[in-house]
């Protein structure tokens, strides 16, 4: 019985210790951001590997999600003769929810795992301690540019996801199923509000960007410096980041659209 309690206590303490280390780490990263802004070249290179290389999967997924939404919603709406409301249905679901969330999940899988693996391998091959030996702070030089790049890329990717998804819904709805072109856009513009819907979607994607980048760089920096440790850290990043995105999405939705 006592042994069982001890296991529980150790797990709890370990969890809170890790949580605390994560918060102290993000403070160090945030403190490193002014130094990063003085050397924007580091950030640009990271935006390339984090953002630009994620573009393909984001655009293809966005297009597919939009097209499928258009197709499925049409089948239901056409029974009520309300197929022109396809525009607002596709736009609202993408801008409010699917854009930030699905882009966040893909971003965690595509970019977050890569960040963790890269930093974790640097740690495992003692490149980070090598930098410390040369009086270069690896948090400022390695971690902070990647964090900032994730922060910048995520909202842009989510916006592209939503925009491409709406175009996908448009192609299916207007091009394939023959909904009226003007009605599609007019109903969309009548129902979608810039501040209520578009801006809240952007805020969501910014929050997800912070959380995913934070988890990715922390898991990498905190990884056990072995092959197995790096692989576990990479898995953890995808799992924790995805769960955080889904959990935070519910909280943010309740706060933004609840009342």
């Amino acid at each position, binding site marked *: 019985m006592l042994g069982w309690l001890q296991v529980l206590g150790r797990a709890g303490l370990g969890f809170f210790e890790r949580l605390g280390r994560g918060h102290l780490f993000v403070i160090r990263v945030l403190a490193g951001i002014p130094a990063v802004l003085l050397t924007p070249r580091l950030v640009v290179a990271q935006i*390339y590997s984090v*953002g*630009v290389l994620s573009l393909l999967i984001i655009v293809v997924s966005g297009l597919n999600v939009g097209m499928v939404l258009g197709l499925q919603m049409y089948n239901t709406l056409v029974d*009520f*003769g309300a197929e022109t*409301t396809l525009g607002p249905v596709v736009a609202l679901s993408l801008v409010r929810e699917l854009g930030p969330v699905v882009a966040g999940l893909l971003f965690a899988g595509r970019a977050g795992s890569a960040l963790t693996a890269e930093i974790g391998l640097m740690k495992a091959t003692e490149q980070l301690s090598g930098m410390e030996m040369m009086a270069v702070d690896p948090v400022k030089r390695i971690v902070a540019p990647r964090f900032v790049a994730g922060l910048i890329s995520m*909202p*842009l990717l989510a916006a592209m996801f939503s925009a491409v998804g709406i175009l996908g819904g448009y192609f299916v709805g207007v091009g394939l199923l023959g909904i009226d072109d003007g009605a599609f856009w007019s109903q969309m513009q009548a129902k*979608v509000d810039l501040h209520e819907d*578009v801006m809240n979607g952007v805020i969501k994607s910014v929050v997800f960007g912070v959380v995913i980048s934070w988890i990715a760089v922390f898991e990498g920096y905190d990884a056990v410096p072995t092959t197995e440790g790096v692989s576990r850290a990479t898995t953890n990043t995808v799992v924790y980041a995805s769960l955080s995105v889904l959990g935070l999405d519910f909280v943010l939705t309740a706060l933004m659209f609840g009342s």
Partner: protein
Amino acid sequence: MGNNRVIEIVVGMFIALGIAALFMLAMKVSNLSSFGTDEGYTITAHFDNIGGLKEKSPVTVGGVHVGQVMAITFDQQRYQAIVSMEINPAYNKLPTDTSASIFTAGLLGEQYISLEPGAEESFLKDGDVLHLTQSALVMEQIIGQFLFSKAGEGSQ
């Protein structure tokens, strides 16, 4: 150095694309956009009741989409709604005594303007006003009238 330059250009394109996507969401998807296509000619019509008509609602002739509603304003002198519509320049043979009605697409669908061509020899041009209009049918009014007539029958 050359490689670095390529990366910077690609990143620049990425950021520009992202901002363009945001811009599209703001302008094309949400209700911010106020500029329409400046092709076509504008005609106006006065309605007693426009129901659920909105800007950018379609304008049709015999079911064919020929234009869209550009602006809806309220005339304080006549207490009527003034609807200005932009008609595609390809459809420039509409007679001047064309009438405009507001119909609903389906039972729950959105409302649109249907133009019924008249028999006049001269055609509508930019800035013309349609004099024959039929207001939107408001469901509550129809139900109210129906109930009222039913009640009248019952008392006789």
